[in-house]
């Protein structure tokens, strides 16, 4: 038998209706590989509310509660409470799988509530950096410089003028036992992080960088390459925070952010000045992350 770097079991079925080259499906595939089928999942409005298929179709080997846009955190608390009432809370994993809009913006309150209440569940934010299911509108998680349909650049060059909100850091501030970032380009790391989250009791949060050919305007074949270069350029660092202690998962010698940006149509309007601004921001954030890692080691 050929050795694979991740287990062969699949819990995401074929025939789902995601776009060609969808990063969010790779995220789902590996999250479920790590959690297994003894899991109850909830998904709010987002791409993944459509990907499983139109009624009566289902493309996941776990039970799925579809719910409203802003309530993933509350739904997790509800599922957990019901499992406690049935005495099944120790055996069944509870998973929320939500997009960046449903997490960073409209669902932030319920997520905060779920974390503060100590709900024993894993919240996965698959981050494709805009409201993709409604057709590429900017979210709080859209990076500086990106074209979206609500930051349409135009003659006035009005791309997204604010930097990406760090939901992972917001979750660290909730003092929950486990926060991590992961990427579809590094499935082994993603798998290991979900496995670790599974072993920890309490609220867990993992933000998975999931490239989107449709919204980012790149060809579908480079989905993984784009995600990889986000990590290699320090645009999206991979790290975990266990009980407040930071651990950077990999510290690549950075490639220029330009190498990442130029792959995507959403950044094609950027001038040198804007690219320089992004580079400075990314360098500063990376320094900050290194300091956090250093500073929290003694905790």
């Amino acid at each position, binding site marked *: *038998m*050929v050795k*694979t*770097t*991740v287990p*062969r079991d*699949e819990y*995401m*079925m*074929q*025939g*789902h*209706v*995601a776009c*060609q*080259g*969808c*990063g969010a*499906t*790779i995220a789902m*595939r590996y999250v479920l590989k790590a959690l297994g089928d003894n899991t109850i999942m909830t998904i709010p409005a987002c791409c993944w509310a459509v990907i*499983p*298929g139109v*009624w*009566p*179709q*289902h*493309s996941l080997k776990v039970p*799925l509660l579809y719910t409203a846009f802003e309530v993933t955190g509350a739904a997790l608390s509800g599922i957990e409470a019901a499992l406690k009432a049935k005495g099944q809370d120790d055996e069944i994993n509870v998973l929320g799988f939500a997009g960046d809009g449903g997490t960073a913006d409209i669902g932030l309150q319920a997520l905060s509530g779920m974390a503060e209440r100590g709900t024993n569940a894993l919240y996965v934010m698959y981050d494709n950096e805009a409201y993709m299911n409604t057709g590429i509108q900017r979210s709080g998680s859209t990076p500086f410089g990106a074209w979206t349909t609500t930051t349409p650049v135009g003659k006035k060059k009005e791309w997204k003028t604010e930097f990406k909100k760090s939901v992972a850091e917001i979750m660290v501030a909730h003092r929950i036992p486990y926060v991590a970032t992961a990427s*579809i380009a590094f*499935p082994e790391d993603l798998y290991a992080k979900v496995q670790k989250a599974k072993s920890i009791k309490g609220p867990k949060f993992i933000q998975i960088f999931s490239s989107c*050919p449709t919204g980012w305007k790149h*060809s*579908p*074949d*480079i*989905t*993984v*390459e784009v995600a990889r270069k986000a990590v290699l350029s320090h645009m999206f660092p991979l790290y975990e925070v266990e009980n407040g202690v930071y651990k950077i998962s990999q510290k690549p010698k950075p490639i220029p952010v330009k190498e990442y940006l130029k792959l995507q149509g959403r950044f094609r309007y950027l001038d040198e000045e804007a690219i320089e601004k992004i580079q400075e921001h990314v360098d500063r954030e990376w320094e900050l992350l290194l300091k956090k890692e250093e500073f929290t080691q003694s905790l």
Partner: protein
Amino acid sequence: MRDKPYKPKTWKELPYATITDVPSTFNNTGTWRTVKPVIDYDKCISCMICWKFCPDVAISIVPNPKEGAKFDEVPKIDYFFCKGCGICAHECPVKAIDMVQEESK
């Protein structure tokens, strides 16, 4: 889950709530494809990177039909599902996958 697709004709055949129980594996998403990945098994090193990154779970690991080959297992593309995104070809470290234009039938 049901073992075959389910096409109700009237409201009387519906479940009381919108509960989904037909596996998506009846969906022929292969019809979306305009370019088709073709594996050159002479080049393939069975690293399974294509399998690993397939967003559609359209690549499976199967016993190598070639007797006495170097690898006992090889990746196999299921064209019923493959949407032709090309990630497999792009990620292949030995360029063993070609993207071939689909022809009209």
